[in-house]
């Protein structure tokens, strides 16, 4: 009843308004009703003159469809920005409607107009209060959302209560919504701050990834200065980061950047040799080694600092440009100098994105490139300008190119600039000229070249280009006031043609400044100027006065009258500025009785040597802002910008971040585990269990859940926990030096963790046997526990495992336990052939196979092709340097037969360096090499090698498919040893997989000249198929081609450098004879290979 009476009273009011509105709105809305809500086509109503009345009628009808239609039209009005507030009473009645769409539309309306109709809005509150108690979490959340969006101060207490309740809701989704509500309430009533901070504190402890982003957002808005709230949650946030939704990641990253700047000491200190070692030490659980390092190193990165850097790095691969930028700025502001480089690639990638993204990213790169040229120099070409780029993008790219210019690349850049100067976009051409000017001042080698180039531009047809050149030349001459009178003369000649005021003024200034160098021309120019004085622009007039004054002082004989004439003209000029200047100059230079004191110094005032202008980047001062922020983009401090503090000199107590736990095992395992991407897998499995929501809750609270989740979610869970525990132990050991009391508890933690770890392991084994029917899971878990995680082997398991896993169950597990350390895949034992392992990593493939693949419609199980890499038993190693000749340093090399990662056309070599002497060897590195055209990939310098220690490094050599030896020097700090590697022809190959058909087809192409064959007598021991295979593969790195025939064995490979196909066929005749055929267009190679094969097969 109350409702109704209210309505009527408001209706009257509304009616009046409606009448006012009706006129202007009527027509436009009719059309929109036809188009906008078209489908329903309420033409009947749209013809009505007072259409808001019919909306009201529709809302009050009993038909759902009519109500919905009315609401749709009202939303259409709101969207257009039309006022629909007089319908409030009619709309608000439908707030409790059952129809979801209707309800949603009512919410939209309510949120929009509640502020204007506060009393009426109150009518809806009870509905939401009721909904807040709904058993369905989504309804609770949506009620809270709308309730908190209603900006009516009276309901602040209700909102506060609702937020508090929802913050401890079972559902993480509702908690997330309450985090959003915090910000809404805060903006409605800032007095609630204290209470809201309490809620934030509570929600910050939340372990759900859903909540994390939203609550940090609330924190940033309500209490960004309460850094103490973050301490306890810091590690958790770092670890959750990977799984937080992308928008939350951005907010958390920026908050953590600020946090880290207050809590850790600067990693940028001078003389810090911070490198891989430190990171290694962090992962290392060996605490003794650690201690030594502490003594050596003056700076030690806080493990928490490292944790942040490590956990954020994968986010550089995010598809969300904002996330990538957030990580980039975090690295920029927090990472040690040499690590910042990792963000470069990703930032350059963003340049492929939309125009607006490019704009912001380029701005940030511009700032970065000023301080660290090296970061972006390799990507110089990515900043080349295209004629289709919008102007602001062009200018930014130009800015960056200029920043990146150095002696080495300046010629390339200047050539590029030449193209730009001719651009049709004249503003851009002008900017290019300025850029040339900057290059000229920055790099003294090219100053003259640039100056000459700019002088050439003076004869350009375009005025803006000429004007800009003049201005830049003026600045350049000023920095180099040597014998450039030629250029000044040239400009004086051009003067008549130039009409742009700024350029004319610049020339005049130049002539005046250097009038003594051009004594003949200067007075003449002044004469011309005296004639045209009245028609010049103000800026030019000022310079004329200036020139006159300077000439008067230096050459008064010729110019006295002219000067007086000009000063007289200036005296009656319309512009007061010019009049003032004239008066001032006259008093200064013309001696009379009144101005005795100052005119003595006129010469020193006017002709004082002037400091050269600094041509510098407009982005020079932008680094005062945090990168990626709005303030940085605008170069103005935006409201709400939070300063990034300087690093503290001494790190605040780091123990504040320690989380007290009653059961140490528990706290670490579940939270930390989430950091890994594999967690998503984990989640996926638990999700399929059905009750992920409850699961999450219980996982966080009950102490046993760590174990239970690992058992239920099979390997991914265990993998995480076990990795993390070792991680955590490293952490604890690093802390142990600093506070011994802490380390004790941590150690305890570790012990506990190790227990879980072993438990987990045993579980892995169990679960594996259960899951044997699932190929990939089984194989990769075997990878886990056999601790051999070489890429190729795990990859290889993959294909085969799927094919064969159904056939085995138990035996596999046993086998694995029997030989846990060998890298050989367990699957091989199933087969009789010990040799080939698959790897899809190989870059080699057969062309026809690929065309097959293009369809990829092969069934997932039986695939004829597998790419092979033989992981052939013990790899033969050869001597490179004997310790006698190497003064204690000995080196051996071997071919690991894996593609070289850095340069695919290089042969991969592993070099084992051993220190057989009794003293420390330092700075092991590669010296000069020959022949000169040999390309090789050096290994990183080894700082030191302890006596009796040895280290294995990998390097790549491009042998260019020849057996020519590679000679190079192996250097220590003191000595250089020349060594030589003679490649074995079989090692210059990489295996290729192909089918028999492909093989035959390819072989058909390589006949005649390209075929070499020989008949041999085989040693009896090699006659069996397996032994033969083994023997061939020991000689050459080839892939076996599966054939149906028993007596014919085929092998295929490609040369590493050129990728030429090498096919080997061994055909067994009646024992022990056999024909060996090699087909390849590398004939030299073929004969050498054939010889090797002959030897290997014939020998016993």
């Amino acid at each position, binding site marked *: 009843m109350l409702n109704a009476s209210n309505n009527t009273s408001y209706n009257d009011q509304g009616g009046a308004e409606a009448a006012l509105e009706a006129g202007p709105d009527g027509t436009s809305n009719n059309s929109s009703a036809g*188009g*906008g*809500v*078209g*489908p329903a086509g309420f033409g009947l109503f749209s013809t009505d003159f007072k259409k808001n009345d019919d909306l009201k009628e529709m809302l009050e009808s009993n038909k759902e469809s009519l109500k919905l239609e009315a609401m749709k039209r009202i*939303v259409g009005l709101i*969207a*257009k920005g039309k006022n629909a507030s007089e319908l409030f009473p009619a709309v608000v009645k439908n707030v409790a409607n059952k129809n979801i*769409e209707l309800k949603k539309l009512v919410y939209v309306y309510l949120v929009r107009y509640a502020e204007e109709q506060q009393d009426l809005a109150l009518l809806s509150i009870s509905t939401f209060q009721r909904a807040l108690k709904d058993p369905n*979490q*989504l309804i609770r959340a949506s009620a809270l959302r709308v309730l*908190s969006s209603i900006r009516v101060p009276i309901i602040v207490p209700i909102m506060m209560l609702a937020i508090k309740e929802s913050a401890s809701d079972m*559902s993480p*989704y509702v908690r997330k919504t309450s985090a*959003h509500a915090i*910000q809404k309430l805060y903006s409605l009533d800032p007095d609630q701050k204290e209470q809201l901070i309490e809620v934030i504190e509570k929600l910050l402890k939340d372990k759900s990834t859903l909540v994390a982003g*939203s609550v940090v957002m609330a924190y940033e808005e309500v209490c960004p200065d309460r850094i103490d709230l973050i301490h306890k949650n810091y590690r958790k946030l770092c670890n959750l980061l990977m799984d937080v939704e*992308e*928008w939350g990641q951005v907010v958390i990253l920026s908050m953590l950047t600020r946090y880290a700047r207050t809590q850790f000491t600067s990693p940028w200190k001078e003389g810090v040799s911070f490198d891989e070692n430190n990171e290694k030490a962090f992962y290392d659980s060996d605490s003794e080694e650690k201690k030594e390092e502490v003594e050596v190193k003056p700076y030690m990165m806080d493990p928490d600092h490292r944790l942040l850097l490590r956990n954020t790095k*994968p986010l550089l691969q995010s598809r969300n440009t*904002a996330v*990538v*930028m957030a990580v980039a700025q975090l690295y920029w502001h927090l990472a040690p100098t040499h690590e910042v480089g990792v963000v470069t690639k*990703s930032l350059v990638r963003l340049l492929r994105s939309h*125009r*607006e993204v490019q704009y*912001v990213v380029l701005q940030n790169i511009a700032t970065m490139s000023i301080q660290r040229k090296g970061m972006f120099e390799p990507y110089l070409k990515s900043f*080349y300008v*295209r004629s289709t780029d*919008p102007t602001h993008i062009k200018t930014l790219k130009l800015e960056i190119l200029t920043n990146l210019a150095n002696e080495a690349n300046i010629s390339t850049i200047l050539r*590029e600039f030449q193209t730009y100067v001719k651009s*049709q976009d004249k503003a851009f051409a002008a900017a290019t000229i300025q850029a040339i000017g900057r290059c000229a001042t920055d790099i003294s080698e090219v100053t003259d070249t640039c100056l000459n180039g700019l002088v050439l531009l003076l004869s350009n*047809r375009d005025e803006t280009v000429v004007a800009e050149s003049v201005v830049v030349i003026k600045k350049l001459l000023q920095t180099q006031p040597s014998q450039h009178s030629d250029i000044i003369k040239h400009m004086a000649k051009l003067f008549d043609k130039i009409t742009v005021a700024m350029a004319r003024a610049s020339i005049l200034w130049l002539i005046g400044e250097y009038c003594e160098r051009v004594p003949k021309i200067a007075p003449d120019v002044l004469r011309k100027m005296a004639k045209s004085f009245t028609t010049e622009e103000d800026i030019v007039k000022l310079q004329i006065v200036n020139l006159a004054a300077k000439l008067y002082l230096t050459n008064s004989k010729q110019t006295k009258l002219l000067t007086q004439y000009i000063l007289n003209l200036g005296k009656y000029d319309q512009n007061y500025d010019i009049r003032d200047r004239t008066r001032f100059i006259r008093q200064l230079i013309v001696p009379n009785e009144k101005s005795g004191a100052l005119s003595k110094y006129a010469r020193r005032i006017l002709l004082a040597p002037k400091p050269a202008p600094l041509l510098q980047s407009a982005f020079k001062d932008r680094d005062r802002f945090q990168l*990626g*922020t*709005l*303030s940085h*983009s605008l170069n103005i401090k*935006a409201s709400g910008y939070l300063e990034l503090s300087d690093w503290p000199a001494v790190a605040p107590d780091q123990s504040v971040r320690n989380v007290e736990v009653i059961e140490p095992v528990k706290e670490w395992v579940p939270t930390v585990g989430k950091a890994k*991407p*594999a967690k998503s*897998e984990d989640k*996926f499995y638990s999700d399929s269990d059905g009750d992920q929501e409850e699961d999450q809750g219980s996982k966080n609270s009950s102490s046993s859940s760590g174990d239970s989740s690992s058992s239920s979610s099979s390997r991914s869970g265990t993998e995480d926990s076990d990795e993390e525990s070792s991680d955590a132990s490293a952490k604890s050991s690093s802390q142990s030096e600093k506070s011994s009391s802490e380390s004790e508890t941590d150690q305890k933690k570790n012990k506990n963790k190790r227990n879980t770890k072993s438990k987990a392991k045993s579980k892995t084994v169990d679960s594996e046997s259960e899951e044997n029917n699932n190929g*990939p*899971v089984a194989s990769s878990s075997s990878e886990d526990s056999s601790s051999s*995680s070489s*890429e190729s082997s795990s*990859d290889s398991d*993959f*294909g085969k495992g799927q094919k064969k896993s159904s056939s085995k169950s138990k035996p596999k597990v046993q086998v694995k336990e029997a030989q846990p350390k060998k890298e050989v895949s367990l699957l091989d034992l199933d087969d009789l052939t010990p040799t080939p392992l698959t790897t*899809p990593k*190989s*870059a080699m*493939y057969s062309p026809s196979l*690929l065309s097959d*693949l*293009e369809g*990829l419609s092969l*069934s997932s199980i039986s*695939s004829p092709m597998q790419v092979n890499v033989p992981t052939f038993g013990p790899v033969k190693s050869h001597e490179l340097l004997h310790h006698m000749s190497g003064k204690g340093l000995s080196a051996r090399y071997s071919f690991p037969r894996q593609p070289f990662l850095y340069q695919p056309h290089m042969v991969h070599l592993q070099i084992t360096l051993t220190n057989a002497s009794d003293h420390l060897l330092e700075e092991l590195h590669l010296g000069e090499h020959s022949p000169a055209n040999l390309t090789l990939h050096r290994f990183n310098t080894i700082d030191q090698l302890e006596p009796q220690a040895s280290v294995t490094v990998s390097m790549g050599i491009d042998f260019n498919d020849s057996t020519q030896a590679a000679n190079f020097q192996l250097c220590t700090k003191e000595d250089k040893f020349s060594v030589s590697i003679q490649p074995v022809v079989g090692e210059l190959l990489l295996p290729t997989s192909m089918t028999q058909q492909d093989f035959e087809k390819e072989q058909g192409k390589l006949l005649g000249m390209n075929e070499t064959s020989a008949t041999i007598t085989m040693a009896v021991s090699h006659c069996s198929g397996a032994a033969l295979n083994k023997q061939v593969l020991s000689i050459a790195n080839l892939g076996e081609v599966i054939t149906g025939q028993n007596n014919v064995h085929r092998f295929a490979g490609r040369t590493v450098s050129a990728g030429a196909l090498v096919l080997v066929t061994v055909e067994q005749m009646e024992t022990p004879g056999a024909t060996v055929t090699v087909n390849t267009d590398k004939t030299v190679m073929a004969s050498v290979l054939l010889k090797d094969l002959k030897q290997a097969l014939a020998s016993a």
Partner: protein
Amino acid sequence: MIHSLFLINPSGDVFLEKHWRRVVGRSVCDYFFEARERAGGPEDVPPVLQTPHHYLISIYRGGLFFLSVIQAEAPPLFVIEFLHRVAEMFQDYFGECSETVIKDNVVTVYELLEEMLDNGFPLATESNILKEMIRPPTILRTMVNTLTGTSNVGEKLPTGQLSTIPWRRSGVKYTNNEAYFDVIEEIDAIVDKSGTTVCAEIQGVIEACVKLSGMPDLTLSFMNPRLLDDVSFHPCVRFKRWESERVLSFIPPDGNFTLMTYHVSAQNLVAIPVYVKQSISFFESGSGGRLDLTVGPKQTMGKTVEGFVITIHMPKAVLSTNLTATQGSYTYDPTTKVLVWDIGRLNPQKLPNLRGSLSLQAGAPKPEDNPSLNIALKIQQLAISGLKVNRLDMYGEKYKPFKGVKYLTKAGKFQVRT
């Protein structure tokens, strides 16, 4: 973060506004219009602007400006990225992102915007979640809705939002289970006057269309993953697997999505598939000029070049053209000064040629600079970098899906300077 959103059409009218916090008056757009006036074209409007009380961040897409108003510090890329997501969502829902279509579906648009942001902070931006809550309009559904009065707002609640894999809805069912992957590579290159490559790089993207029932877990591996230098993934891809094994392992979203984008490492030389022999010259007298273009295939790996189009932005002084093309057709728009030569399929035996004269505005000076040529082309069944998909496996479901991979090479920002 984001306070309000205004959609502005090319003629400068605000045709939709949405506020997530207190209402911000439309007059704030005036600052934007001023900047729009000052800038040469719509593309030249700076994306980030400052006004006395607000900051304006805008994107320009499909002829429309999406203008968002923010009041305090917020990462500009955050807003820009979100606005693009909104535009993509419209595209996804309505097939295109234009003024008409937004006006026609204003209610759906409003419902979408309402769900995408809460108090200016993104809430649900995954198309799968949104589609569960608000069904995209189809002709059939519109008819049914009109007749029965039902709505396109899903009866179901957005359970996807609670899931830990928010990109996939549960209970997907198809009669034909299919998974298609398109490997699309774009060549970005600048070729100079003499035909030498100034810079060239390959950017690739794998677009997927996965229609598989249940919760399939897919693994995609490449023959030569080392080619990939820099990658970014859809959130569904398990980054750890990629790091350790270089395979893409993921539970796919339902329907169309971008699985990954990549950049091919710089060491690999980029094969430029076509060459252009050009000579564009203007007479000293300033009365006209000549144009002679010949194109031909260069390194196409035995594939045919299709969809070959050359676009030239002529200098302002060029009034009209009188050209003959041996293949394809050309158009010259005298108002925008754009010459488009649509060649189509490239025949290596008979090289297409376009030649003729250009007439200049009387009295105009000879243009300083020759215009550069922008090239568009397509090569089917070829990934120019040589990237190959090795295999695709599915786990977690019993049925056998139909799988397909398609390769396509396109010209990205391919420019020939003259």
